[in-house]
C-alpha cells in the first residue's frame, strides 16, 4: 500500500499571529537569528531568508468606514505535488521527495545553480552565505520519526494542522472551509483554508510553474544530465575564450535562465 501523503492544513481563521511557528522552526533547525529593522510593521523579517523557513504575514486593511481587517498567513514552501523546483533541479537528490510526499533539500548535493528559485511559483527557495538552497522541509526528520513538524507542535491555536492530506482536506471541507491548493500543481502539500481571496494573501490565484521551466523539463532535461554538463562545458569554453570579466557580465545579464 502506498504511503499516505502527509501535509498541512493551514486554517488562517485560527491564526493569532503569535509567531511561535517562526521561533519553533529556528529552534528545531538550529537557524541563526537575522538582524532585522523595525520598518513600521509587526511583520518581521520582511521576507523569508536562508535562516527563516516560515513566517507569518500580517495583512491589514480598512474599509471606508474604518472597519479593520488584520489577517495572518503562514508563508512557507507548500510542497507542490508537481514541484517546479524538483523538476528543474539538475543535481540529482538536491531536491527530492520523501515517502510522505515532503519536498526536502540536501545541501551536500546542491550545486548552487538557483534554477529552483525561478521555477517556484511561490518564490520560496533562498540561498544563504554558503550558496546552497534552503526552504521549509516540513521537519521531515521529525515526521520520519513519527512526530509532527516543530511549527505545528508549537502552534497554540491549531492553525497549523499536520496529518494525512486527504483526511485534513475532507475535514476542512466538512467544516465548510474555502480551500486553496487542493488540486493546483497536483495538489499542494500545504493546503490553505482562507478567509479572503488568495490574492489578498499574495498567493497566485492559479499557481503554475513558469513556462520557461517546461522547456527545461521537456526538451533539455530528457537529454539527461549530460545536457547540463554540456552547458557547463560551454561556459568553460566561454571563460577560456573571453576571460572572467565578460563571463560575470554575461551571467548577470542573462541570469539563471542562460542555460535553460
Amino acid at each position, binding site marked *: 500500500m502506498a504511503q499516505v501523503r502527509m501535509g498541512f492544513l493551514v486554517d488562517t481563521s485560527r491564526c493569532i*499571529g503569535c509567531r511561535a511557528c517562526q521561533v519553533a522552526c529556528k529552534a528545531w533547525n538550529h537557524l541563526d537569528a537575522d538582524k*532585522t529593522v*523595525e520598518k513600521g510593521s509587526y511583520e518581521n523579517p520582511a521576507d523569508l531568508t536562508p535562516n527563516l523557513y516560515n513566517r507569518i504575514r500580517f495583512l491589514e486593511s480598512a474599509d471606508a468606514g474604518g472597519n479593520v481587517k488584520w*489577517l495572518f498567513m503562514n508563508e512557507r514552501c507548500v510542497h507542490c505535488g508537481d514541484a517546479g523546483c524538483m523538476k528543474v533541479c539538475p543535481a540529482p537528490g538536491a531536491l527530492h521527495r520523501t515517502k510522505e510526499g515532503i519536498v526536502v533539500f540536501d545541501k551536500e548535493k546542491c550545486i548552487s545553480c538557483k534554477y529552483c528559485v525561478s521555477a517556484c511559483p511561490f518564490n520560496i527557495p533562498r540561498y544563504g552565505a554558503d550558496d546552497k538552497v534552503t526552504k521549509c522541509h516540513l521537519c521531515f526528520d521529525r515526521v520520519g520519526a513519527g512526530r509532527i513538524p516543530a511549527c505545528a507542535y508549537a502552534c497554540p491555536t491549531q492553525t497549523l494542522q499536520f496529518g494525512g492530506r486527504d483526511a485534513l482536506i475532507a475535514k476542512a471541507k466538512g467544516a465548510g472551509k474555502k480551500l486553496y491548493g487542493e488540486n493546483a500543481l497536483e495538489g499542494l502539500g500545504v493546503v490553505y483554508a482562507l478567509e479572503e481571496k488568495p490574492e489578498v494573501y499574495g498567493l497566485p490565484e492559479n499557481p503554475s510553474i513558469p513556462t520557461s521551466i517546461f522547456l527545461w523539463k521537456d526538451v533539455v532535461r530528457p537529454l539527461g544530465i549530460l545536457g547540463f554538463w554540456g552547458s557547463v562545458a560551454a561556459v568553460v569554453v566561454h571563460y577560456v575564450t573571453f576571460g572572467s570579466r565578460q563571463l560575470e557580465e554575461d551571467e548577470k545579464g542573462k541570469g539563471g535562465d542562460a542555460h535553460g
Partner: protein
Amino acid sequence: MTNHWIDIKNADVILIMGANPAENHPVAFRWIQRAKDNGAKILCVDPRFTRSAAKADIYAPLRSGTDIAFLGGMIRHILENRLYHQEYVAKYTNASYLVGPDFQMPGDLAGLFSGYDKKKGKYDKKTWAYQKGPDEVIRKDETLKDPRSVFQLMRKHYSRYTPDLVSSITGTPKETLLKVYEVYGSTGKPDRSGTELYAMGWTQHTVGTQNIRAMSIIQLLLGNVGVAGGGINALRGESNVQGSTDHGLLFHILPGYLAVPSADLPTLEKYVEKYTPKTKEAQSANWWGNRNKYITSYLKAIYGAKATKENDFGYAWLPKNDPGVNSSWLMIFDNMFRGKYKGFFAWGQNPACSGSNAGKVRKALEQLEWMVTVNLFDNETASFWKGPGVDPSKVNTEVFFLPAAASFEKEGSVTNSGRWAQWRTAAVKPLGQSRPDSEIMNDLFFRLKALYAKEGGAYPDPLVNLTWNYGYRQLDGTVRSVDIHAVAKEINGYFVDNVEEKPKPGEPPPKEKKFVGKKGELAGSFALLQADGTTTSGNWLYCQSYNEKGNLMARRGKKDPTGLGLFSDWSWAWPVNRRILYNRASVDLSGKPYLVKKAVIYWNANAVLPDGKLGKWEGDVPDGGWPPMGNEKDGKKPFIMRADGVASVFGPGLADGPFPEHYEPLECPIQENLMSKQLTNPASKKFADGGLPEDVYASCDTRFPYVATTYRVTEHWQTGVLSRNVPWLLELQPRLFVEMGLELAKEKRIRNGDMVEVASARGKVDAVAIVTPRFRPFKVAGGTVHQVGLPWCFGWFTPGVGESANLLTPTAGDANTMIPETKAFMVNVKARG
C-alpha cells in the same frame, strides 16, 4: 481567575476588555478558539485593534481610561431591558439591602458620594452603611422595589449612563456600543454564560479597582459568577504571579490574604478582633470567621517552637506598617527618591524599566547606599549607574549582582491564573554560578543570623526566631541546600500536637478517642487548622496541597467526568481543589443547576452518606458541603468569603465609592468630565502635592495633546530582560515603536517607518512610527481625540532597541490598590529631523 483557563471553552460569550490574550496569553487563546468552535461570540473592547480584535466577532474601540463609562452604560442597558437574572440578583447579591437615608450619589453631589472630606482627599464612609433592624440584621426588600434598596439606587446611579453620553465619553460609536451590550446582555438568560477576560488594561488606572467592580456588577446581574464559562477572570501576566500574590508578594498582605498588621494592633487578640468579620445574617458561613486559626497557624509555621501561647505565638515579631502608612510600589520609590532607604533588593525585577515614571525610579536608585540585584541577566536596574545621562563617578550606590537560576533550572510549584498549583521538576542544571532563589535566600538567612550572633544589633528576634527546617543541617547549624519539598510541606502545614475530635454541640462524647490529626502529620485541609497553636500552615489557602496522600500539585490525572474541563486530578487548585469559585451560586435554592448542560455542581438529594444522612454535592468541590440554601436549617448562602454570604453589588468597603463612577484619568484630553463636575478620582493619591519636579502632570495641555497607553507584545516578556537576550525574539520585534492612526500621522507629517519622538511631561523616547488603520481618532465631547500606544519591553541596556516607554508614564496610583496608572496618560509625537 474565579474560573480557569480551560473553562473559557464553556462560555457562550467572551468579553475581552482590559486584556489582549491573543498577544499576551497566546497559549490560552486555544480555549477561546474552542469556545468559538462551539458557537461562542467574541467581543473585544480596546483602544486599538489588536491581534485579539482580529479574531473577534465585534470590535469596539474605546478611549483609554473610560471603561467605567462603557460598563456603566452596559449596567443601565441590562437594567432597563430587564436582562438580569432575577432570582440570582435577589438571593445571591446584596441588591435587596436597604441603604441608610443619608447616602447620596454622584448624580446629586456633583460627582461625589456623600461623606467626602476635601481636605483629606478621603471619604468618611459612615453614610454608606445599610439600614439595620434592632437585631443588627440588615433590612432587605427582596422584591427589589424599595427606593433605598441597592438595586434601585444602582438603577438611579446608572440611569445617567445613557448610550449617547457614554459614546461621547468613550468615543465608541453608539451602534457598536449597543451591539456589545446586546450580545453580552444575552448571557443573563439562566441557561447561558458569559466570561470576562481582563489584565493590566483594567488594573493600571486611578480607577483600576472600580473598573473590575463595574464588571463584577454586570456578571452578578447576569448570574455569570460561579457558573461554567463565566466569572471574572484576571489573566496573569507572569507564569507564577498568582502564586507570588497568594504567598504575600504585596505590601499589605501576608500569605493567604491575611492582612499585614499595623502598629496600632499590638496584640494578636486585637489583630484578630479587627480582621475577623462578624455577622448576624442568617445562613451565612462567614468563612473569614476562621481568621484566628489561619494567622495562628501561620505564626506557628514561621516561628515554630518559639511561638507559644504565652508570647502571642510571636505576633510581636511580625513586621508592622505604621497606621495609615502606605508601603506600595509607588511609595517605595517615592521614599527612596527622598533618601529614606539605605538598601534595596531588586529581586527578579527591573524597576528602571518596569516602574511607572521610570526616570524618577532611576534617580531614586542613586540615593541608595547599596543595592542587591538578583536576576538572570544584567539589566537597566543593575547597571543604572552607567545608564544614559548618569555619571558613574557621582553615584555612590554599591551594587551587587547575584545570578539566579531560571524556572527551568529548579524544582517547585508554579500557580497559574486559574489557581492551579502545578509542580515542576528541574529540566536542566543552573548555568555557571547561578542558583535557585531559595538557595540564595538560604545563604542570606544564615549569614544574617551569624552576623547578629557575632555583632548583635537592633531587634534580631524576628529573624533569629524563624524556623528553617528545609534540609539537613551541617555541623555549624546551617542548611547546606534547600529541600523544596520541605518548603512545600511547611506551606501546607502540620499537626504539631495530637488534636482530638470535639463532640458536636448536643452530641455525647465518643466512646473512643478520635483524632482530627496526630502530631507530625501533614494537615489534610484548612478546615482542620486550629487557633491554639496545635497546627502550622505557611499559607492556609494551600493547606491540602501536600498532605499525607502526597504532593497533590504533582498529580497528572487526565480524567474529566463532567466534560467541562475541570480536570480535578490534574495538579491541585486552591482552595481545596475547587476549580470554579462561588460554584454554589451556579445552582438554584434547591441545588438544581441553572445551566443544566454545563452543571458545575448539583445537589444529589438521594445520596446516602456513611453516617446514614441523605444528600451530597456532585461535580466540582463545592464552596462548603452544607446543603443548598433552600434548606433553611443547614443550608448556607453561596458567597462564603463575604461576611453576609452574598456578593456585593454595592461595595461600601471601597475607598472611592460603593458604586463605580466614571472619572477621567489623572492626565486626560478634556477639560471637563462629561459625567459630572468631578474630573478625576477624588480619592486617588496626588503625588503632585509632594513637590517633586519629577511628579509633573499635563492634563488638557496643548503641549501633550494625545492620549497614550502602554502594552506588551507577544514577542517580548515584561521589560524584556529575558526576551531581549534571545536573538530569535529580537528578530521578531527589534526595537521600540509607537503606533498611531493615519489621520494623526498625516497631521504630523509622519510616514510609516519614520523615527519619531514621543514625549510626556516627564520624559521622552525615540520610536519607529507604525502608522496603521488599527488606531482611529475618537469622537469625544464633540471633538477629535487621537490616541497612540507603545510597548514597554525595551531599554537602553540592549544596544539599538530604544528606551523604556515607562519614562513617559506618571506616578499616579489607584485609590484602593495604588497600582500605577500606565494605561492612560498624555503625550506629544513629532517626526525626528
